[in-house]
């Protein structure tokens, strides 16, 4: 764990206590069973707002605390432990980052206070295919009058059903596959021509497919530069990747705790199974791996807080997302294997962690995507 300030320690402890008391995995299970995927709204969402988490990345002028990404990461890690899938990441990290990096002062003033008080929920609607690939954006925005008309499909949008507004990268020039020619738009979820369908994914988080069928927006819906959004989109995504890595550390950390607890309690052949070195050594390796992964996740968050150059942030974000992804992948597999039969049952929580792990791995680019990107960034 990075050396934390007093304030960060307080926020982390608060977050861990909240997750433990207010959002045990039993609550996630109940949500899953009621098929209300992603519907962590109402009281729980209000609770997060009251804790101030929605304002961690928002300037004080707009009602936030501006405490930075490492601090946000502490909260996300706590939430990740109990699989608390909320719009916090999508709105208060990804959405708020997009507004801060690309939005005008007026746009920030119009939107960010709502993000802080929870009345506005933002979601970045970036992917169009089954795999993360922002440059492949095909959704078009055609100039019309002094505004634009958006047409296209956005798929697997995180928190797509609870969002009140989408941040939509669309093509104002160029062809799918090209980085040039993209523009970011802020589109209200109730805009005429926008429709969405909730999806049932294996990890019971709230995803939606969003269809933009000639959605007309004004010029004031453009976030940042027309045609030149790719760099800022990538910067927003790097913040998303770093933040998600923190959440993944939480999910992997809790899975690992469950695993070690089981190794200490389950007996076979008259002794605890953790005494079999075939298992104990693997656990020791996972612990080592966890430490390495943690360093990457924290370094990525810190590089953002320290205003490192965009290329450094990009490197660190890809390093973190790939490295933490591999770690979570490993731990989620071993969690099941080392539990034996009980790990295969729906009644036990292990399966939730396996399922969430793969969804987190795929979101904002999987390990392969980020290894490739890392290699390119380093010039290999």
């Amino acid at each position, binding site marked *: 764990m990075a050396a934390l300030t007093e304030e960060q320690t307080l926020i982390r402890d608060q977050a861990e206590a909240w997750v433990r008391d207010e959002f045990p995995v039993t609550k996630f299970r109940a949500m899953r069973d009621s098929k209300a995927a992603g519907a962590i709204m109402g009281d729980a969402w209000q609770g997060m707002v009251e804790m101030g988490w929605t304002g961690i990345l928002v300037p004080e002028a707009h009602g936030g605390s501006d405490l930075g990404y490492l601090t946000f990461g502490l909260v996300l890690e706590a939430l990740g432990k109990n699989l608390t899938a909320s719009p916090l990441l999508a709105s208060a990290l990804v959405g708020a980052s997009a507004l801060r990096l690309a939005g005008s002062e007026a746009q920030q003033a119009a939107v960010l206070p709502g993000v802080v008080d929870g009345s506005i929920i933002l979601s970045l609607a970036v992917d169009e295919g089954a795999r993360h690939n922002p440059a492949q954006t095909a959704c078009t925005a055609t100039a019309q009058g002094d505004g634009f008309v958006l047409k296209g499909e956005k798929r697997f949008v995180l928190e797509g059903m609870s969002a009140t507004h989408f941040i939509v990268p669309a093509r104002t020039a160029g062809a799918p596959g090209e980085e040039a020619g993209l523009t970011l738009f802020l589109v209200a979820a109730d805009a005429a021509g926008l429709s969405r369908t909730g999806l049932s994914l294996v990890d019971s988080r709230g995803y939606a497919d969003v269809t933009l069928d000639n959605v007309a927006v004004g010029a004031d819906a453009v976030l940042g530069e027309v045609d030149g959004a790719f760099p800022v989109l990538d910067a927003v995504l790097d913040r998303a990747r770093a933040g998600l890595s923190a959440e993944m550390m939480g999910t992997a950390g809790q899975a690992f705790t469950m695993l070690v607890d089981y190794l200490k309690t389950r007996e076979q052949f008259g002794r605890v199974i953790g005494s079999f070195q075939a298992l104990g050594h693997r656990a020791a390796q996972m612990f080592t791996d966890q430490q390495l992964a943690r360093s990457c996740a924290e370094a990525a968050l810190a590089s953002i807080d320290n205003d490192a150059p965009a290329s450094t942030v990009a490197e660190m974000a890809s390093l973190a997302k790939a490295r933490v992804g591999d770690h979570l992948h490993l731990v989620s597999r071993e969690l099941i294997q080392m539990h034996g039969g009980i790990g295969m049952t729906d009644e036990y929580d292990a399966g939730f962690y396996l399922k969430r792990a793969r969804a987190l791995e795929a979101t904002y680019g999987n390990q*392969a995507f980020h290894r490739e990107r890392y290699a390119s960034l380093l010039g290999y």
Partner: protein
Amino acid sequence: MSTATSAAGDAFRESVRSWVEANFPPELKDQPASMEGAGDGDLAQALERWRDALAGQGWGAPTWPKAYGGAGLTPAEARVISQEIGRAGGYNPIPLMAGMGVTMVGPTLLEYGTDEQKEKHLPGIASGKIRWCLGLSEPNAGSDLAGLATKAEDKGDHFALNGQKIWTSGADISQWCGALVRTEPQAPKRDGLSFVLLPMDQPGVETRPIKLISGASPFCETYFNDARAEKSDLLGPLNKGWSVVKRLLQHERASQTSARGPGAGGKSESLYAIAKRYAGETADGKLEDADLRARLTRHLMDAEAHRLTAERIAAEAKGNVEVSAAASIMKNSATSVSQTRSELMIELMGYRGLGWEGEAFRQEELDTVREWLWGKAISIYGGSAEVQNNIISKNILGLPETTQKG
């Protein structure tokens, strides 16, 4: 192989092929193999017809003697039969419909059973009409199976069973059960066990399905409350159940050494073709994602190495499938190949490989996800991967073992 036998082999293959062509119901082509077997509807009727046709040939369990419902064929001939059925786009439903009957209980009965027991039980298995489950594991006796507690008390003409089994696959839909029970509580762990056969449809047996992470409920908690097993259904000598079950588990491993498994079973499209469909290809037809391409290639090599090893072992055993420690090697290798394939499948499908249900996903995608989750079990049941490694290090490498004290 001599020319004479290979000519005979070709003739045999020819005859199997034409029989399959004449008898395989075309509507079953490329249907996924189902443990549950015939439900209802047209497909189920076709499946029953197909089962009965195969059973008529003795091909439900081709290597068993004709007298017990088999066809008295060699293992090599049996392989030809399954190859030819596979070639027609089908599968042999009998080993599935019989639960643990064809793969485990039957072979063990052939070795240890009395003539009377063989006559009573084998034909029902070979016809696919009697389904068997296996009551071995208990909540506190998994890898350490010999630590089990279910008791069987001698009641003169029968045993009365009391205790709990768990993870009993198909217990709720089986007609018969093979159970490992304690008949001599005073003896050291492994010396007081016996293997008994008992019908599931009786007041003393209760099953409660357990739901898996894949959503299905293929196994149960099984409770014995004065459940009755006839003395005549004791398999092998009294208190020698450990030897019987060791043999049975070797048969189980031997049946689990095929690495087709999840994500590949019966589907004709190659893994690379599926990958290109989801992950795209370059102008010269290579998989776009170079990292995925490298890992897919490694997997394909692993799968091929596994297949070649299976062939080599079969050839070295001169057509007799060797049920031995080699089964542990092959089980672990098969498990690793199958599980890697499943992980690669869901990875290459991206978000589409994460669907749970709903029209947004294609059936093949939803199936892949469920198979991926279900497939996590194959390195756990039938002796976990770790237990197989213990067997390899002890029985093949001769390393001292640390777990067994009586």
